């Protein structure tokens, strides 16, 4: 069966802006620098990484909300182009992070949710109200909400409205770009469960972007870890958290504060997070990597399938964690 979404070597570069007193050098920010992966129907791919890793830019680019600099995106097996973006808009939708700026402030909730239906002619003015009420119910809101304005709703409710809007066109793929990051802890899990329930009922496919590794683990079947515009590891969730193969992934996982202190040693990353406009040569992580060797500064590692279903971009993927090697079918 064809993948629902396939991304091949996608790149998105931004031209640097000249400061007032800056020199003549132009700086290009390579926000997404060669990313490839696939997503299958019904699964959730988690996309994790810290600020500047490019995950937000990546999802905006693959949805053609930003035009890619190079690379290809295939949806339903067909290659996407800018001209065909409308076709994509019916099949793929996005839910944004900030409940305060992601809904138009001067439109009523009902109109916000109805607009995509009207644009794609999925309902006319008379039947749209019914559809809107149905969608509100699907996301756990009362029908009276349709008459209200976003500023009258709480953060959690606004996110539900955003989800309802995304669902209105009955998409196959929904991208959640840090969709719960701005919500209170006690509300986050409500929305996460809502996402899960909707996935079950509507056979949705998710790309779940999050900087929170706990959230990503809860939601995702597979997880891709990004660093400075590239995927450095991609694996099934369980495997990734139990046996991370990329040193960055390991540092990331060990940095999470844990409720049950078990005296494990935390990997301390030295140095500063890098500047996306000025990436280091070779492996972008090598200046901060605890196991960096000479080759790391010279040659950038490619994302390779070191073990079945386990993609890692590192010259020493298996060397660093002997436990991963033993007991598994060698496929390297």
């Amino acid at each position, binding site marked *: 069966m064809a993948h629902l979404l396939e991304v091949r070597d996608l790149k998105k570069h931004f031209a640097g802006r000249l400061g*007032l007193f800056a020199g003549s050098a132009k700086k290009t920010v390579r926000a997404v620098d060669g990313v490839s992966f696939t997503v299958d129907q019904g699964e959730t791919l988690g996309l994790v990484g810290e600020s500047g890793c490019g995950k937000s830019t990546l999802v905006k680019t693959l949805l053609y909300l930003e035009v890619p600099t190079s690379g290809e995106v295939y949806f339903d097996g067909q290659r996407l182009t800018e001209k065909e973006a409308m076709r994509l808009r019916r099949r793929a939708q996005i839910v944004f992070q900030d409940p305060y700026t992601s809904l138009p402030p001067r439109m009523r909730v009902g109109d916000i949710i109805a607009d995509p239906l009207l644009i794609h002619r999925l309902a006319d003015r008379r039947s749209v109200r019914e559809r809107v009420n149905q969608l509100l119910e699907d996301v756990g809101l009362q029908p009276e909400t349709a008459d209200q304005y976003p500023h009258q709703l709480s953060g959690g409710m606004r996110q539900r409205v955003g989800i309802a809007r995304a669902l209105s066109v009955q998409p196959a793929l929904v991208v959640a770009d840090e969709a719960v990051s701005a919500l209170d802890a006690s509300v986050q899990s409500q929305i996460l469960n809502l996402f899960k329930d909707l996935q079950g009922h509507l056979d949705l496919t998710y790309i779940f972007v999050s900087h929170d590794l706990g959230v990503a683990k809860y939601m995702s079947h597979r997880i891709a870890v990004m660093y400075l515009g590239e995927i450095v590891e991609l694996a099934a969730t369980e495997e990734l958290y139990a046996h991370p193969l990329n040193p960055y992934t390991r540092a990331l996982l060990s940095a999470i504060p844990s409720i049950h202190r078990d005296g494990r040693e935390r990997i301390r990353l030295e140095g500063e997070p890098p500047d996306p406009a000025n990436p280091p040569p070779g492996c972008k992580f090598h200046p901060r990597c605890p196991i960096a060797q000479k080759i790391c500064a010279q040659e950038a590692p490619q994302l390779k399938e070191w073990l079945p279903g386990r993609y890692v971009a590192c010259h020493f993927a298996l060397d660093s964690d002997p436990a991963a090697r033993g007991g598994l079918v060698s496929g390297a």
Partner: protein
Amino acid sequence: MLRYSLRRTAQMVVVVFGVVTLVFFILRLASGDPARMMNPPGQQEEIIQLTREKIGTDRPLMVQYWDYLLGLPQGDLGKSFHGGHPVLGELLKVFPNTAMLAVATILFSSTVAILLGIGAALRANGAFDRLVLVYVSVALATPSFWLAIVLVLIFSVHFDWLPAIDMEGPKSFVLPVLTLAVMLTPVLIRTVRQSFLETLSEDHIRAARARGIPEHRVILVHGLKVAALPLVTLIGLQLGMILAGSYVVEFIFNWPGIGKLTLDAVAGRDFPMVQGGVLVAALAFVIVNFVVDLAYAALDPRIRMSAK
């Protein structure tokens, strides 16, 4: 830095060029025949034609325009229709008078605005603040020419403390500067106050207090340094307002400046003089704003150092 300056200079040239062109054509297209106006009514056609030739309006429009443009870089702004004196000379004669008025006004208004604005901001919604804001409202609504007349009525006619017209001695500066100041200060005070209020509510002010920095230092050093930045642009703003207001003020007080010169020229259809006056005003506006922008960029380290 250099690139920015070059770019801005190019923009300035374009703007001034646009202004000059605009005024050139508006005058000639909207206006009647200046030659006719300069002659008594009922004058013979031949004499009028002679006048035309003398002042040069007999030539095709585009020729006049081209001629004018060519003369500009050489400093030749044409000759006045009335009397034939070089426009540049006349302008330079009266320019210092307006300049002095402008400088005095800017100094006075800035001082008043800063004191009142900061004072109002420090006790926002207090009695002083409300008083200041009432002043701002009333001053904004006051017609400048009316204020000038009222001031003259009180201080010159009734009390005879200050001269009503002409520029003679420091006392004669008082009423014109006061009139202009009432025009300028409302906007300035509001901007100062706003800037200060915003700055004082920023995180770093609270953090400075938390570090134990005494209150007076928090306001006067930390607060002022950040709030003062946008105020630099006020100087450019003031100049614009003074230029606009100078026509009326110089008219009422019979002040021998560029404004009066230009007004008289408009009434007399003295095109080159009007063009000259407009050119000077536009140049002053554009140059001062450029300098102000540079100063702002130099003072704010976020702009000065940004290579990101």
